[in-house]
């Protein structure tokens, strides 16, 4: 068999629950060795899509292959070839990390020396050596997620699904986990990640954004930021630095030219018509008693991308 160039290929992948269409004709490819960000609001169909790709749920329509296996005809092969780590800690809390890894290794048919070697390898990878003998439930959130990642990697899957892997863990643990993912991706592993964090989305090689069960946009973060619908013709984005950003935001939001305005890192991000000048903005803020505003042109952020696309659809 020729190794497929894509870890995942879907074609019109669809799943209905009764009348409700949970996943609507999704067609996309995930390149091997990439970190693929699968984004979308809660309830947009992300989880249903992942369950289909994991061979747990059959599609109503359409096809998909995962690691070269057909998800409908070969669900067992799909399951053996993937790793999965969910948002909530889903290992046995009363068992130690060592026992959990032994169990999941056994589930994937590892035993004896091989199991021992694999356990040692994943434990070293995530740096869990010191915590192997205490109940997993007593570990902190960050360590639990490392353990979950170790368990997902025990059988050396080429593709790993991470469903909101960093929800509820602290920023340092989050950074450590991502560093680990970069290392592994560098070794050729593919990651399919869902997240609500924009900084995490920025770290992905490619992003798919789904909303109301449909694929909205897909591409690299750079490609998404330069999409025409995010940079409507005749508009520009600026960041306004000022002494009291909340008051400034309230003042600017009252203006007709403010197409979109929000606060980011104590600056006001403003989308406005091309013809609105920087001086107009400083003048308005002056009147509000907020002198000394500094205006500079900016590119849209990923958050801007998703907010713009989602709001535009919600209006229609």
């Amino acid at each position, binding site marked *: 068999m020729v190794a497929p160039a894509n870890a995942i290929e879907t074609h019109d992948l669809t799943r209905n629950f009764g009348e409700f269409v949970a996943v609507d004709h999704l067609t996309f490819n995930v390149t091997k060795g990439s970190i693929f960000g699968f984004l979308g609001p809660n309830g947009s169909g992300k989880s249903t899509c992942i369950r289909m790709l994991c061979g747990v749920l059959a599609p109503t329509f359409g096809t998909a292959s995962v690691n070269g296996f057909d998800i409908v005809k070969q669900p067992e092969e799909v399951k053996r070839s993937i790793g*999965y780590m969910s948002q909530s800690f889903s290992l046995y809390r009363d068992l130690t990390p060592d026992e959990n890894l032994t169990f999941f290794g056994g*589930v994937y048919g590892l035993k004896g020396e091989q199991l021992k070697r694999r356990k040692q390898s994943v434990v070293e990878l995530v740096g869990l050596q010191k915590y192997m003998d205490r109940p997993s439930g007593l570990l902190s959130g960050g360590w639990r997620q490392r353990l979950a990642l170790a368990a997902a990697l025990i059988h050396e899957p080429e593709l790993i*699904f991470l469903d909101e892997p960093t929800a509820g863990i602290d920023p340092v643990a989050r950074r450590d986990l991502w560093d680990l993912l970069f290392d592994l991706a560098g070794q050729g592993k593919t990651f399919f990640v869902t997240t609500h964090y924009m900084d995490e989305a920025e770290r992905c090689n490619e992003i798919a954004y789904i909303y109301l069960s449909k694929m909205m946009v897909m591409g690299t973060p750079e490609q998404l930021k330069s999409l025409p619908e995010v940079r409507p013709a005749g508009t520009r984005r600026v960041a306004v630095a000022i002494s009291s950003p909340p008051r400034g935001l309230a003042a600017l939001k009252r203006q007709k030219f403010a197409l979109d305005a929000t606060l980011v890192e104590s600056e006001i991000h403003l989308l406005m018509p091309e013809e609105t000048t920087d001086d107009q903005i400083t003048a308005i803020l002056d009147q509000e008693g907020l002198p000394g505003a500094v205006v500079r042109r900016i590119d849209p952020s990923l958050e801007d991308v998703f907010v713009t696309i989602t709001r535009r659809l919600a209006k229609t």
Partner: protein
Amino acid sequence: MNNELYGFRSIALKEAMHIQRDRATLFFALVIPVVQLLLYGYAIDFDVRHIPTVVVDMDRTRESRDYIQSLHNTQYLDIVRMADSPDEAERAIRSGDCHVGVVIPPDFARLKGGPTPPQVRVMVDGSDSQVATRARFAFVSPPAGPAVDARMNVLYNPNSRTQIYMIPGLAAILLQLITVSLTSASLVREREQGTLEQLMVSPVGRLGLMLGKLAPYFFLAVIEMCAILVMGYLLFDVRVTGSVFQLILMSLPFIVASLALGLLISTSAQNQAQSMQLSMLTMMPSILLSGFVFPLETMPGPLYLLAHLFPVTYFLQIIRGVVVRGANILDLWPNVLALLILMVVIITAATVRFRKSSA
């Protein structure tokens, strides 16, 4: 204003809203007690009648047939079988098919109406106290016509010791209770903790999951079973009349069926509280309908059928048969067969239900 009481109104209102939303709890609180009251109200009938009876008619005359008919007419006894010899009659009692045996002597017609009335031998199964006491009524109120000298002979438990029939019954009930509660929480717990999700994406098969969950509890239950038998002997002097090995052998399908019943409950419940409620739901019929308190034969049809959905009903017959009456596998095979079928049906049902609930 008493600060300790502060918030009472809001809490009470909120709690009422929870109850209204939680249909399952509402159902268990209101409907189930009513249904159970109706069920057991009909089941609880100490006036035991229609006791299955085997008759050996060595006389085969009009008089002996009339006598048999008159026994039947008392309604205490149901003549369900005719045997050729007292031995055959005793086998029928040992196997649990009949609880009373009547042996009519060859000189019945000749002696009837004479100065010495004919002696009829009556064998009564002592392994069920209700039956043992009630069977006498058929003979103390003698049928019309000249007297018959009925000689009662209580088999298996001649001194009518309560422990002799209570301990084996209790053992069966306790075993089902333990096994069902052991497994009923297990799948739900995995669902609640999210570990089931992790298992679903792994190559673990559904039957592998089901049977794998049963296996360790199975050994636990077998040990428990042996412990109960030893305790019954040491503390209550209840000896196993038949073969201990055969008893343990016949307990195996019972234990698996009960454990699987727990798993079936587990697949139906959304959370551990519900699985608890459902386990409790199986407890009442197990105690009241299994034949532990009331003889199965006297139960109204629907309850009789309901009773036979629970593994304990069959095992109660088995354990009483072996412990009290010295019955063996050949006597009790219909119960064993029923348990094997029930075991397969329950495991299949649990596996199918699990597939649906997890999809």
